[in-house]
């Protein structure tokens, strides 16, 4: 498989390493003043030049590329180069745009913009990742799939305020969230087959990540009202503040730059904004950080994020998370006591890999407490015609959990026809994976 990476950012290097170790034929096009010679050992092609020049793209043979990922620091450059690559025949083109103002929704990924297959926002992806980690504190099983477009989680009935009287398929949940299956005695059962719920059951809730919290609220999961402190008003910090305050929590955000603080105060109505240095010990003590449930550090300075997270943990904060730019430091700091270290570069490159369907090892998770695993199948973009879900002859015990269409989570009953580029999320017993893949391969081409 051929991959073209545009840009010489840290993410480009990570992607190049990951892909070439996956036996991809990797080409990097960049015009930045950066020495990439150390990558030659990976056996890849490096072309210096402007990726908005069609001649150059042709030279890089983008028409044969499975994936073109534009990951430079310049959003317009990324958009133009990946759109051109699409036009020249690249199968999947991906562009990274950091300005949230470009996006028409609050999703981390938007599909099919300007002829680019997927446009990604790193800050939002990292924010989704932290939200997932926070949810994971309370729930055993939480995963984000397909570029964080869909979240799958298990909610024990025991944790609800009361056992729902209706059948799981009749539960009324916000649009975009649903219960496709129930976990009972280690078996995942399709929701339609369950008529009443038991105290030991676990509900599988699936939906758009931004809507999951209101779905949980509707189901009667008691929500924590604990205080949240965010240090750093970066785009990711602001997004987390908004999401968490919407859940009804008291959120304080500390931002060092006065201008940015004023901007945030105007933007985030129900968040308390403080203009101060969040890594200041005396300040954290004054703000009674020991009573904070979640501390999230999200400044642009990695060291500061880590030390502040550790410091607040030492002072008694219940959970501390640090957002990093660089990849690879997470494990060490998690051992030191930080509950979660999320790297922007890491999250971005992993999501590019899954959206491009290059590597889904991250997503083939075993559903905790069952012998089912998650399996994702993506309808090819050159699919001849839409096919009906009824034509899908699933192996026994395999369940279609949901469909992701253009960053939206759809319930299987909501749509009959599968369109090109739809992603189907299945839960399937380990033993049946091959059978499922066989069924799906018929539609793959």
């Amino acid at each position, binding site marked *: 498989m051929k991959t073209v990476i545009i840009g010489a950012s840290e993410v480009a290097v990570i992607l190049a390493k990951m892909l070439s170790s996956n036996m991809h034929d990797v080409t990097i096009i960049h015009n930045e003043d950066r020495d990439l010679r150390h990558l030659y050992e990976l056996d890849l092609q490096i072309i210096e030049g402007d990726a908005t020049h069609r001649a150059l793209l042709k030279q890089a043979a983008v028409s044969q590329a499975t994936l073109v990922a534009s990951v430079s620091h310049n959003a317009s450059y990324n958009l133009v180069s990946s759109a051109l690559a699409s036009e020249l025949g690249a199968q999947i083109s991906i562009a990274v745009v950091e300005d949230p103002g470009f996006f028409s929704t609050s999703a981390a990924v938007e599909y099919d913009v300007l002829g680019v297959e997927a446009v990604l926002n790193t800050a939002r992806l990292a924010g989704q990742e932290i939200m997932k980690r926070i949810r994971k504190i309370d729930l055993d099983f939480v995963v984000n799939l397909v570029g964080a477009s869909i979240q799958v989680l298990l909610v024990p009935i025991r944790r609800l305020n009361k056992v729902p009287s209706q059948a799981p398929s009749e539960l009324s949940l916000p649009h975009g969230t649903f219960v496709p299956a129930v976990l009972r005695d280690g078996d995942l059962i399709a929701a339609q087959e369950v008529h009443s719920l038991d105290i030991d059951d676990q509900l599988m809730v699936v939906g758009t990540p931004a809507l999951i919290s209101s779905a949980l609220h509707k189901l009667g999961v008691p929500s924590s009202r604990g205080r949240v402190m965010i240090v750093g008003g970066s785009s990711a910090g602001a997004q987390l503040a908004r999401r968490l305050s919407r859940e009804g929590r008291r959120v304080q955000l500390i931002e060092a730059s006065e201008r940015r*603080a004023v901007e945030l105060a105007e933007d985030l109505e129900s968040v308390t904004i*403080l*203009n101060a240095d969040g890594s200041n010990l005396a300040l954290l003590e004054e703000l009674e950080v020991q009573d904070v449930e979640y501390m999230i550090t999200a400044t642009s300075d990695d060291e500061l994020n880590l030390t502040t997270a550790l410091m607040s943990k030492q002072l008694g904060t219940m959970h501390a998370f640090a957002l990093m730019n660089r990849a690879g430091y997470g494990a060490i700091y998690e051992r030191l006591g930080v509950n979660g270290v999320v790297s922007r570069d890491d999250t971005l490159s992993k999501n590019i890999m899954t959206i491009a369907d290059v590597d889904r090892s991250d997503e083939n998770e075993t559903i905790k407490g069952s012998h089912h695993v998650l399996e994702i199948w993506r309808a090819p973009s050159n699919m001849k015609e839409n096919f009906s879900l009824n034509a899908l002859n699933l192996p026994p015990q395999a369940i279609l959990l949901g469909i992701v269409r253009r960053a939206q989570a759809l319930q299987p009953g909501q749509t009959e026809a599968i369109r090109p580029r739809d992603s189907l999320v299945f839960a399937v017993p380990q033993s049946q994976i091959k059978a499922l893949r066989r069924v799906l391969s018929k539609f793959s081409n």
Partner: protein
Amino acid sequence: MYPLAVAKNLSALLLLFAALLCAPVGLSVSQNNMSALVAYATSALITTILAVVLGFISRNAKPRIHRKDALITVAMMWLMMGVLGGLPFVIEGSISDPAAALFEAVSGFTTTGATVVSDVDGLSDPTNLWRCLMHWIGGMGIVVLFVAVFPQIGVSAKQLFKNEAAGPIVDGFKPRIKETAFSLWIVYTILTVLCAVSFFAAGMNSYDAVCHAMSTLGTGGFSTRGASTGFYQSPLIDWITCFFMFVAALNFGLFYDVARGRWRSLFQDKETRFYLMINLLVVMVVMWCILPLHNDNGIESLRYALFQTLAVTTTTGFMTEDFDKYPDIARYILFMCMFMGGCAGSTAGGLKAIRILAILKLIFRELALVIQPRQVIPVRIGQSTFPPKVLHAILTFSVAFFFLWAFASAILVAMGMDFISAMSATIACLASIGPGLNKVGPTQNFMIVPAAGKVLLSFCMIAGRLEIFALFAVFHPQCWRKG
């Protein structure tokens, strides 16, 4: 400054003014009232001559004006309106003292409604029509009317408009200034017609209905009757008046939204909500205070409390009962309400509800900052955040408003008026309410104020109507200097 450009604009404004004087001229003709005809026709003639002379002098000037010229034009026009508007009173003999006539005309145009006439019923019909017409024109503003009807002024419009429209922001209206001015006048006219029809249906004669409607929508307060609205002793007329007084004190931009189908904006507007809340509170307190005066009849007390409260908070100044005879707590609250006035972008005067709301929010912000000085708290009203510059302007305006009030009151006291009469007379004029307390109370009139005091109060009325700075800037030497 370009004096010829000012003259050119003034000339056009004066022509418009002369056209307005034709209304009482027409009524005098139809009623065969010779003395009124002479008075109004002469005034119209003098105004026209003045306009023609100014027009002739400035025939070669470009109509385009800049900030300074706009300030001077608006201020000059308002001063001239006082003089020329009072002229017919002197000629007709209805108000023979020139200072009193000036006071009456300024009170008319600034929609104050404070009168020097003790026997309103004795005034001729054309004079009463003129008094109410002054309210109506002054309410929305003659310059705004000018911007709306004269097609050629173009770029100058914005400069002129800014200086006459009331309140810190005119919400709802965003596009071109000329369209804004035009739609404001359309909304205003429709509401006035609705009000007049309602009055007529409720039993007023057509002449009274039209005059009262103009006075109500302009939040003026002049009546064709000495006993004001109280003359009719009709609950229905009281309720209608209350409704339209309240409507006139709301932001007209919101009605424009309503007319375009956005009903919600009327109820979602934070200033409107705040204003409504204050009014409800005051009505309840006043109603409770005056229960004994109305033999504990709840409905009657509500009717009178609502009317008197709205007359003050909308800065209209009609009356159905002498609120100066109310218990002291009710009098005091009504007196305090005089400072607030109506909403921004309405025809009402005063500090405006949105300024009070912003100041309250500033106070709460200051409190929070004492506890946590690092906090960043924007002053947010509805969807918008007030930038520091606007907040600064709001505070400065409010302080200037209080200083002017204190200073003018002091001069009146020095002229021999008592404390309460002087203070209430000044605020009644500054906030364009009309009646004050004590010697200038609702059943009294401003004749007792010395001539110099009348001129001072006329000045206060214009200052209040033009929101102080637009008028005082003209007295700043820099306004007359070159460059």
